[in-house]
C-alpha cells in the first residue's frame, strides 16, 4: 500500500492518565475513503484515541498522522481538514440551529453556502426548525445538526465518537445512509459505536479492549474467525432457560439475543448428540416447548466472545 493511500496512520501510540493505561501500543491504519469502525467495551480507550487523532491531547509515545500530517508538529493543519463529533452533544444549546451552523462555519473561515451541497441532504430535515434552540431538538435532530456542523468546512476525514447513542432505530438508519453518501464523496470516516448492526456497515472494524487493538478486519473476516459452535434456543420462560443452562456449567457462554438465547460451546466438545443431551437435561429440569438449533454467528456473538474475559 502506498503512503498516499493512507488517511489515518497510528503507530505504537500509548497514553496514560496518572496510573491508568488508556492506550497501550496501539497501531492501525485507515485507507482513504474507508469507513472504519472502532468497537469495544466502555473504557476500552476509544474516546482517548479520538482525542489524540483530533489533536486535542498528545500521546505519551508513538506517532499518529492524518493525511500525512503529524499530530504533534502539524496539529494546526490537521484541525482544518478534519471534522469531529464528540461523544456528548457538542453544540451550543443556547444558540439556534441556524446560529450553530453559522458559528461552526465562521470558526473554520468558510461561509455556510460554500459547502452547502455536502450537507444539504442532512440539513434539509432540520432546516424547518432553524430558529429553534439546539437544546430543544430531539435526539435524532441533534445528531443531524452536529453532523452538519462537523461537515461545514468540507473535511477530508470525519471522526464520529458514538454518533448514534440515544438515537431511535429509524433515525439511526437515516444517519448511516447519510454516512454512506459521504463515503461516496471520498470522505474517510472513523466511527465508534456500541450498535453491532452498525459495525456490520463498516468496511473494516478494529476491536479495542483495555487499550489494545485485538484485531482489525472486515466484518466478514471477524465473523469468519469465530471459533465456537453456536446454538440458538427459544421457547417458554426464557429467563429460567438462561439461568438453568448457565448453571450446567459446560458451556462457554449463554446470552440473550432478542427472542433467542445464543449458547457458545467449545468446538471440540460439540458433537452430533449434544443438542439431544442438552434437551434431555432441560426436560429433566422441567422445561417444555423449547427449540434448539445450530446457527451461524453474528458480529455481536464475536463481540461477546472477545469481551468474554472481562468482569
Amino acid at each position, binding site marked *: 500500500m502506498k503512503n498516499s493511500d493512507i488517511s489515518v496512520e497510528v503507530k505504537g501510540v500509548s497514553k496514560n492518565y496518572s496510573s491508568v493505561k488508556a492506550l497501550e501500543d496501539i497501531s492501525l491504519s485507515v485507507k482513504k475513503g474507508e469507513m472504519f469502525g472502532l468497537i469495544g467495551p466502555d473504557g476500552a480507550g476509544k474516546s482517548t484515541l479520538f482525542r489524540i487523532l483530533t489533536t486535542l491531547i498528545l500521546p505519551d509515545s508513538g506517532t499518529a498522522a492524518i493525511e500525512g500530517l503529524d499530530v504533534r508538529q502539524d496539529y494546526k493543519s490537521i484541525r482544518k481538514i478534519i471534522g469531529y463529533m464528540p461523544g456528548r452533544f457538542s453544540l451550543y444549546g443556547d444558540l439556534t440551529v441556524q446560529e450553530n451552523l453559522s458559528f461552526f462555519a465562521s470558526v473554520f473561515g468558510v461561509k455556510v453556502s460554500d459547502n452547502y451541497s455536502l450537507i444539504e441532504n442532512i440539513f434539509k430535515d432540520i432546516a424547518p426548525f432553524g430558529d429553534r434552540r439546539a437544546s430543544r431538538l430531539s*435526539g435524532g435532530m441533534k445528531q443531524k445538526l452536529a453532523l452538519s456542523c462537523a461537515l461545514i468546512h468540507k473535511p477530508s476525514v470525519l471522526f464520529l465518537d458514538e454518533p448514534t447513542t*440515544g438515537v431511535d432505530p429509524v433515525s439511526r438508519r437515516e444517519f448511516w445512509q447519510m454516512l454512506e453518501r459521504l463515503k461516496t464523496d471520498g470522505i474517510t470516516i472513523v466511527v465508534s459505536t456500541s450498535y453491532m448492526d452498525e459495525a456490520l456497515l463498516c468496511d473494516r472494524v478494529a476491536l479495542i479492549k483495555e487499550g489494545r487493538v485485538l484485531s482489525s478486519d472486515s466484518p466478514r473476516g471477524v465473523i469468519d474467525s469465530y471459533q465456537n459452535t453456536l446454538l440458538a434456543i427459544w421457547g417458554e420462560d426464557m429467563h429460567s432457560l438462561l439461568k438453568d443452562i448457565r448453571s450446567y456449567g459446560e458451556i462457554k457462554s449463554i446470552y*440473550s*439475543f432478542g*427472542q433467542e438465547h445464543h449458547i457458545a460451546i467449545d468446538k471440540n466438545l460439540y458433537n452430533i448428540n449434544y443438542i439431544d443431551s442438552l434437551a434431555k437435561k432441560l426436560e429433566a429440569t422441567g422445561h417444555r416447548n423449547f427449540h434448539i438449533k445450530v446457527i451461524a454467528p453474528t458480529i455481536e456473538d464475536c463481540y461477546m466472545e472477545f469481551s468474554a474475559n472481562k468482569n
Partner: protein
Amino acid sequence: MNSHLENNIKPVIYVENLTKIFGKFTAVNSISFEVNKGEIFGFLGANGAGKTTAMKMLCGLLKPTSGRGFVAGFDISKEPERVKASIGYMSQRFSLYDDLRVWENFRLFGGIYGLKEREISETTERMLHELGFTQERNTMVKSLPAGWKQKLAFSVAIIHNPGIVFLDEPTGGVDPKARRQFWELIYGAAERGITIFVTTHYMDEAEYCSRISIMKDGTIDALDTPANLKLKYGVKSMDEVFYQLASSKG
C-alpha cells in the same frame, strides 16, 4: 379514596387520556394504558415522540394539561410528592454523584428516601454483594467504567424498595456485554415483584419486555406483547415492527 385504589388487583400504573400541551405544541396527546404489577413494560418510540414528557408526568415531575393518571396508587396530578416517594427513577443521563464514593451515593439516596441508618447500611451491603462491587465500596464513582455506573445507578434507584422503577434509556451507549448484564439486574428486580417501566432504542431489548407500547407524535400507536406485535405486522423482529410504525407518515 378513589374507587379503583381500593381494588385489590389494581394496576401499578393507570393512565386515562393523559395529555400535555406546551403552548401550541401537543407533546402527549390523550394516551391511555395500564401496567400490571411485576410487568416489564417497554415504552418505545422515535426521538421526539413524547416519551420523556409522558414519563415525567408519570413520575410526578410535570403536571398534566388534562386526563388523569395513577402511579403506585397515587394521583399524579394531585399527589405528585407521594408518587415521587413511592417510585424509583433512573434518568437518561447518569444520575449518581461522581464526586462521592460508592457507599456515599447509597447513603445519600437512602437518606433522601427517608430510610433509617441501619436499613441503609444493610441494603448497601446486600446490593454491593449482589453486584460483586464489595471491593469498590470506597471508590469514587467517577472512576468506575460506564457499565458499572449504570448498574450502580439502578441499585441506588431501588434502594427504598419501590413498587415500580422508571428507567429512561438505561443502556444508551452501553456495550453489548454490559447491556445484557444490566438486563439480568432488571429481571432480578422484576422477579422480586418490582414493576419495571423502561425506554430503549435497542430493539433486541424490546423482546425482553412483557409488553411494549410504541409512541409516535404524542400518541400510542401500538401496545401489546412483542410476539403479538410481530404477528400483527407480519414481521420477524421488533426492529421491523418499529420501522413500519415509526416511519409511516402519520
